[in-house]
């Protein structure tokens, strides 16, 4: 049986090392690798040590000789134990050696949550791991962790993203375990305390919106929303569309943080401390964009089916609408009905813009119900465009 396996991907020739390389098999391994290299036409050769458990000095000498044949040679996916051998012998200074992800077993771990992208397991008393369903989730994982990290050092209270680990054939993101309950759950359990929770909910929102971010660090929500509007060009009355486009492009560029998916399932309380989770939608932009997504989460999504608020928020529709109505005076510091109505209309016109685009992209025109819903969103947008002259809140 061959001691190595090989594969080629994106112009890189990978040689996978297995089990142990020591004096008993080093000469055979060397011979096999040299043989494989002869057949390889790719410009780069990489040794993949994912399955390597041990390497002795005889094995290290093989690598040194290979390096003379292919000077670009590097070693990837090295386990912590093998990395230590490379480090102790000074190899890490001669050849690029990169560690692989830690391997984690979730056997026997309690499942504490389940979302659209993955399952969350409790690892120990301090950590959880979010294991993604799709195998190629790595870029998404790193993106979310980087956003969370940036928010955290800017003072936004959230869980610590520890490391990324391999869990079976997929990847998991290890986070600090929060002994926390979501606002949705707290409100469902203590409806009489709703006002108190909405105050805390709005306080954290204001803190987020007062946090300045480095413009390169987070996506620009204004550009995203302009994209939504452009998508709708052929679906709205052309004069109305022109107006919507003008309104959105007139929203000033704003480098303050917005969460992008701010709702009561993503805000938790732990020992009286309010914490934010799900950081993958963090962006920068004017608060009007945030209110558009909040409007959807509490009102817009449920226009046709009020029961869906239970699925999304774990709360009855009357409660979600009430949260929305109670938030606005607190955030804007006014009880003036006309002013609050104006805020709602601005949030709604952008909220429905998003919903309309979303449904069209999901083949909404294919069904009678879909066509009816798209028409409803269109009406909601177009009637509001008659009287909205700015999206400034």
């Amino acid at each position, binding site marked *: 049986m061959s001691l190595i396996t090989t594969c080629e991907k994106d112009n890189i020739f990978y040689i996978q090392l297995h089990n142990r390389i020591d004096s008993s098999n080093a000469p055979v391994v060397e011979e096999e690798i040299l043989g494989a290299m002869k057949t390889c036409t790719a410009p780069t050769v990489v040794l993949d040590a994912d399955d390597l458990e041990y390497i002795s000095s005889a094995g290290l000498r093989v690598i040194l000789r290979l390096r003379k044949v292919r000077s670009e040679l590097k070693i990837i996916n090295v386990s912590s134990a093998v990395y230590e051998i490379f480090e102790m012998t000074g190899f890490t200074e001669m050849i690029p050696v990169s560690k692989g992800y830690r391997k984690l077993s979730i056997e026997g771990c309690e499942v504490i949550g389940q979302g659209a992208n993955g399952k969350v397991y409790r690892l120990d008393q*301090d950590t959880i791991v979010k294991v993604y369903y799709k195998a190629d989730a790595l870029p998404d994982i790193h993106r979310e962790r980087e956003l969370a*990290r*940036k928010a*955290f*050092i800017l*003072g936004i*209270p*959230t*869980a*610590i*993203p*520890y*490391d990324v680990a391999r869990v079976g054939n997929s990847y998991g993101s290890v986070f*600090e375990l*929060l*002994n926390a309950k979501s606002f949705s759950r707290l409100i469902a359990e203590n409806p009489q305390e709703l006002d108190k929770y909405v105050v805390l909910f709005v306080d954290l929102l204001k803190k987020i919106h007062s946090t300045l971010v480095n413009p390169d660090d987070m996506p620009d929500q204004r550009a995203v929303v302009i994209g939504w509007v452009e998508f709708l060009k052929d679906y709205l009355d052309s004069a109305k569309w022109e107006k919507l486009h003008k309104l959105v492009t007139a929203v000033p560029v704003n480098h303050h943080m917005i969460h992008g998916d701010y709702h009561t399932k993503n805000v938790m309380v*732990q*020992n009286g*401390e309010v*914490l934010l989770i799900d950081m993958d939608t963090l962006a920068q932009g004017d608060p009007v964009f945030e209110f558009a997504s909040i409007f959807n989460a509490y009102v817009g999504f449920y226009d046709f089916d009020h029961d869906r608020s239970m699925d999304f928020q774990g709360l009855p529709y009357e409660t979600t609408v009430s949260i929305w109505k109670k938030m606005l005076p607190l955030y804007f510091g006014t009880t003036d009905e006309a002013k609050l109505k104006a805020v709602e209309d601005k949030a709604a016109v952008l909220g429905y813009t998003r919903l309309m685009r979303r449904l069209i992209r999901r083949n909404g025109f294919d069904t009678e119900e879909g066509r009816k819903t798209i028409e409803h969103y269109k009406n909601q947008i177009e009637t509001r465009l008659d009287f909205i002259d700015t999206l400034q809140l």
Partner: protein
Amino acid sequence: MEISKKKEESKLTVGLSGRLDTLTAPQLEAVIQNDLDGVTELVFDLKDLVYVSSAGLRVFLMAQKTMNKKGSMELCNVCDDIKEVFTITGFADIFTIK
């Protein structure tokens, strides 16, 4: 968690031992809020600290913000595990760690 305080003129050394987590972070927060009058040099001795949670990191962040206005702050005797937490969270770039 246990907190010890040693004041030498304008230098305050705060020793922490045990776990700085969501349950104990408020104790340290109280120190930051009450004991920094006249302090220009704040030192955290983390020799006996075994764990720090996000709540603990936020208290350090708060202390750093306070000290930025009036002097310096450093974290010393940080064990490898906790140093790792400072590194992965990006806090290592903000704090002076010795």
